[in-house]
């Protein structure tokens, strides 16, 4: 049995998540990954915004920061730059990261500051009662889309790749053993790494859409997921409605803080040459 207790603030339980919610599966996978890469609790920060996913840090015995809706990445950016030795993990939801926090999300991917972002994608705003989110599939119902969503959905992983993330992977709450390995890889990757995790919300997504129980959702993930290696060989039409899982993107790009440090060293070495006087008339 994996010693989860070691990482939990046990006095904070029971948690607030609904029966059948995927959050617990993700948290456990994250803890297994953290254990494997052996980062001390004192040197790990978990930062979140608002939403069901964002209640994660409160249950975990690390440096934890629960911020505003969509803003977790901004706080994490300051924290990481001020104390670069911290391993910074951001946990977020689909609405938190790609609606209200969408601008921060794409720019963090572009900037490539070292942090790992886990997005619990349950296609809905669970905390506020099941409103339509940027990832709600076209036609699916939500409390603010009672006749079905008339908007196309975001592909979170595709968005991160396009914006410049170093490492992007997708998995689901059914693939729990794959998930911890992916998180482990993401934590070991220098730069901005993202894992999109499809997560069941039986209360607010499955119920209005008549998709069954949490178990039915997990079965759906099992039956409709295809490994990225397989997906690459398939013609487009055969991929419709399928969930591509695995490492979608893994590239080497200059990491922001390392580049900034190089800049600092250069400036400090050539301080006379590089710098205009403080009260330059052109200023």
């Amino acid at each position, binding site marked *: 049995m994996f010693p989860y207790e070691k990482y939990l603030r046990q006095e*904070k339980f029971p948690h607030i998540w609904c029966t059948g919610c995927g959050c617990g599966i993700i948290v456990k996978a994250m803890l297994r990954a953290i254990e494997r890469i052996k980062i001390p*609790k*004192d*040197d790990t*920060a978990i*930062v979140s915004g608002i939403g069901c996913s964002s209640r994660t*840090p*409160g249950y975990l*015995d*690390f*440096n*934890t*920061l*629960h*911020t*505003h809706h969509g*803003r977790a*990445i*901004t*706080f*994490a*950016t*300051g*924290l*990481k*730059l*001020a*104390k670069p*030795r*911290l391993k910074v993990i951001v946990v977020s939801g689909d609405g938190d990261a790609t609606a209200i926090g969408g*601008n*921060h999300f794409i*720019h963090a991917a572009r900037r490539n500051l070292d942090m790992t972002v886990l997005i619990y994608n349950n296609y809905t705003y669970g905390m506020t009662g099941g409103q339509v989110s940027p990832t709600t599939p076209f036609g699916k119902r939500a409390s603010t889309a009672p006749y079905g969503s008339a908007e196309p959905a975001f592909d979170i992983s595709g968005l991160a790749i396009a914006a410049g993330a170093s490492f992007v992977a997708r998995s689901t709450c059914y693939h729990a053993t794959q998930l911890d390995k992916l998180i482990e890889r993401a934590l070991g990757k220098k730069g901005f790494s993202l894992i999109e995790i499809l997560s069941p919300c039986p209360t607010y997504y499955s119920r209005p859409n008549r998709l069954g129980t949490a178990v039915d959702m997990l079965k759906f993930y099992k039956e409709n997921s295809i490994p990225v290696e397989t997906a690459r060989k398939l013609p487009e039409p055969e991929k419709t409605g399928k969930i591509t899982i695995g490492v979608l993107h893994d590239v080497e790009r200059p990491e922001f803080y390392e580049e*900034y440090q190089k*800049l*600092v060293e250069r*400036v*400090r070495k050539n*301080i006379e040459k590089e*710098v*205009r006087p*403080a*009260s330059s008339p052109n*200023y």
Partner: protein
Amino acid sequence: MKPNNVKVMTGNEACTEAAIVAGMRFFAGYPITPSSEIAESAARRLPQIGGVFVQLEDEIASMGAIIGASLAGVKSMTATSGPGFSLMQENIGYASMAEVPCVIVNVQRGGPSTGLPTLPAQADIQQARWGTHGDHPIIAVCPSTVRETYDWTIKAFNLSEKYRVPVILLLDEVLGHLNEKIVIPDQADIDIVDRVRTTEPPDEYIPYRFTESDIPPMADYGSGYRFNVTGLSHDETGFPTNDPVKIDALYRRINRKIDRYRNDIVCFKEDLLGDAEICVVSFGTSARSARRAMREARALGIKVGLFQLYVMWPFPDVELGRLAQRIKHFVVPEMNLGQMAHEVACATRLTPTKVNRVDGSPLTPGEILEKIKNVSV
């Protein structure tokens, strides 16, 4: 005075230089006129001393980042103007609620909306107090010269560290861009205040413990103290609570911090008020015109004095109320439509004479003098 301590610089440059002296090692910002030179000088200066400058995607992110950096123990600042200040309000509330020291510079321009990007105003003073939602503690300071900008930037950091509260430094376009002679004070003569850090061992540390001072000692993230910070109503341990007793205690304590120390925070200068029958109340660059107007009025034999605020919030209501016991005429020049006059009216229970300008031009001594003359008749 050492000759190399005499410089000519703008208010914006003085702000950055002073922030560095105060210990700022992290700056996050977004370009906006007329504050951009603060970001530009921080971008130039911070790498020289091993600090971090980062330009982020907007003012929301900038404000979030300085909170994150401050929680890691690094003194942090951002700078902006009207529209950006509006965007920062959300996270300013977080800094008030979670008691995170940080400094926000607002080089005021005309508003609302995009308003007058390149022209001055003093119309954000009520926003500085009440811009974010909910009852919250805040301090706002308002220098009027380049040298005062230098001094008050340092004091802004000191107040922020001492009281664990966000501090707004209110400049305006005139002051931000004004090139003025400044004698840089000797660093040995400058008081620098650092936040009180806990001396308890990590397993005994309670991040929001009720202490005699009402200001809980801090610990830095990543220093062996593992704790939780949230913008939700929280108890002493820093975890969310719905317990009415604990919620009430938290809100009262964070606001009481300012109330009980207001005498240490409030700062103003009285000029020629001893025998005055008229009191001009002003702040920032308007106070410079007001001082000139006062002198000219004195030359005409009018008994007028000046009450200049250096701290806008908490407001010097007690002191103005006391003055109102013997002075019945208050004149309030400001580059807005009466935001401070409203406070003066509340404090003095009199109707002050307003001198307002909202056309993007600074108030002139002449127009203030005219009002003083009218009142003295």
